């Protein structure tokens, strides 16, 4: 079967607690080593190697180390973490507990986006179940290791998906990104060494521990490791969450979800890239098409300028306003998009200053929001929009 093995949402699940008990039979350093060797990279989108993060936090000096789960998925078109929590909340909690054991932390927090209040009871129940089975809480399985998890809600801010904004928000402040360094692994929540990982990353950890690093690595394709959840929506017959090898070709996902008429595909959400039908064989990997969690398909009836305007309205609304290139730049890009719509722009050459602005935004913004929000502008204008003054085939 081309789709490969499904781990995260497959039918064949390990029993609850199995991976944690196996982890506790190992030394914390060996757990970190296993995760590092598995080559898993952050499933939230940025793709930082998880094992390196754990290693740094484990080695950092400081008491009260923290394990934080980023459940603030806000990238347009992403809903994989919601489905993962709905179906397998225990696995996320177990992955966090293993992380706690590995780095020497006894306290975890799940930062759940405000838009998912209906997931709070699900997480709460999973937490209580684990506590009653002695797999979470004080003195887990009589091994002398304690780990507690708190569930906290965000209040509606896309930028809080950025890990330092998320930490600021947990500390009760505006969710504005911090300067790095120091990195959270050294000085994160309340200046404590902190690991922040995405829901899907934590959920993969029990599988890595049980199957081993080499096995997990072998599940990926291209230069990637493991499996990945993809949320697909838009003009497809069967929108939903699909699990494929990390690095699988975009075309594979489109076929699974029943995309027929494909004029454009947005990979990696509004901040990702917009690809043409010629690019569907590209692998969804960190080096080629970083997928984040979101794939949105547009058929030939869609006006890509509408799509671009919608994305840019989103970024104007969600920019936290801290960095000027992002705060002002997104507005300028939205203005020029509206001018294009009004027919006021004769040719692509007239947009040169705005491509320069896009470069400035990428270089001059502190966090991923401003660094990636111009992507859709550059991609859609370059690949999909025709201007009256363009030469043939431009």
């Amino acid at each position, binding site marked *: 079967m081309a789709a490969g093995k499904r781990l995260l949402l497959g039918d064949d699940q390990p029993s609850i607690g199995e991976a944690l008990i196996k982890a506790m039979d190992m030394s914390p350093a060996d757990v970190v080593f296993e995760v590092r060797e598995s080559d898993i990279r952050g499933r939230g989108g940025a793709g930082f190697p998880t094992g390196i993060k754990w290693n740094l936090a484990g080695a950092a000096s400081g008491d009260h180390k923290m394990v934080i789960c980023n459940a603030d*998925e*806000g*990238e*347009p*078109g*992403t*809903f994989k*973490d*919601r489905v993962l929590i709905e179906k397998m909340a225990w696995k996320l909690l177990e992955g966090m507990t293993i992380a706690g054991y590995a780095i020497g932390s006894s306290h975890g927090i799940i930062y759940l*986006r*405000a*838009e*998912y*209040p*209906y997931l709070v009871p699900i997480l709460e129940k999973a937490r209580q179940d684990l506590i009653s089975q002695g797999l979470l809480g004080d003195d887990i399985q009589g091994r002398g290791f304690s780990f507690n998890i708190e569930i*906290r*809600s*965000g*209040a*509606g*801010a*896309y930028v809080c998906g950025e890990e330092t904004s998320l930490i600021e*928000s*947990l500390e*009760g*402040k*505006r*969710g504005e990104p911090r300067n790095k360094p120091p990195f959270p692994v050294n000085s994160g929540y309340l200046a404590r060494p902190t690991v922040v990982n995405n829901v899907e990353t934590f959920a993969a950890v029990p599988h890595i521990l049980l199957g081993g690093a080499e096995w997990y690595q072998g599940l990926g394709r291209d230069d990637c490791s493991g499996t990945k959840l993809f*949320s*697909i*929506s*838009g*003009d497809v017959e069967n*929108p*939903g*969450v699909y699990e494929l090898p990390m690095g699988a070709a975009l075309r594979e996902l489109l076929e699974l979800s029943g995309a027929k008429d494909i004029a454009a595909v*947005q990979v990696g959400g*509004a901040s990702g890239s917009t690809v043409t039908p010629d690019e569907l064989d590209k692998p969804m990997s960190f080096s080629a098409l970083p997928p984040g969690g*979101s794939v*949105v398909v*547009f058929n030939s009836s*869609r006006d890509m300028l*509408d*799509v671009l305007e*919608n*994305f840019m*309205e*989103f970024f104007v*609304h*969600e920019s*936290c306003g801290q960095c000027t290139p992002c705060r002002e730049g997104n507005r300028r890009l939205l203005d020029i998009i509206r001018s294009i719509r009004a027919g006021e722009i004769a040719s692509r050459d007239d947009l040169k200053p705005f491509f320069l602005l896009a470069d400035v935004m990428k270089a001059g913004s502190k966090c991923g929001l401003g660094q990636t929000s111009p992507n859709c502008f550059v991609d859609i204008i370059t690949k999909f929009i025709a201007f009256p003054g363009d030469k043939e085939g431009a």
Partner: protein
Amino acid sequence: MEILTDVNRELGCIPEEAIIATASAVGVSNAEIYSVVSFYSFFSIKPRGRHIVRLCSTISCVMSGSAEVLEAVKGDLGIREGETTPDGRITLETTSCIGLCDQAPAMLVNDEPHTRLTPETARAIIAGLE
């Protein structure tokens, strides 16, 4: 954040008195609390309705017809997005992606998700709110 979340939930908004009280309880300036409240879209300083309807206005929902749903609801309620009905029953807001793109168009009514909306079903759901 937890204090503000509780206040916001209980009162539907975070009025000036609550900002002042929170600031003195936490030991920071009123301005600092105000800046936090104004940062997050789920917090409001203005009083809001008994029910808060948040209709998604991001791409997958738009492609599935959320604009038509919004027009229908606005017509029924006689308010625009961001406004509250004069009887204090409903506040209507549009929101960035709420992660229900596979069941678009979608909205949150208070804490409840409603999916695969049509103008008719959305109207019926909203008419059913007391």
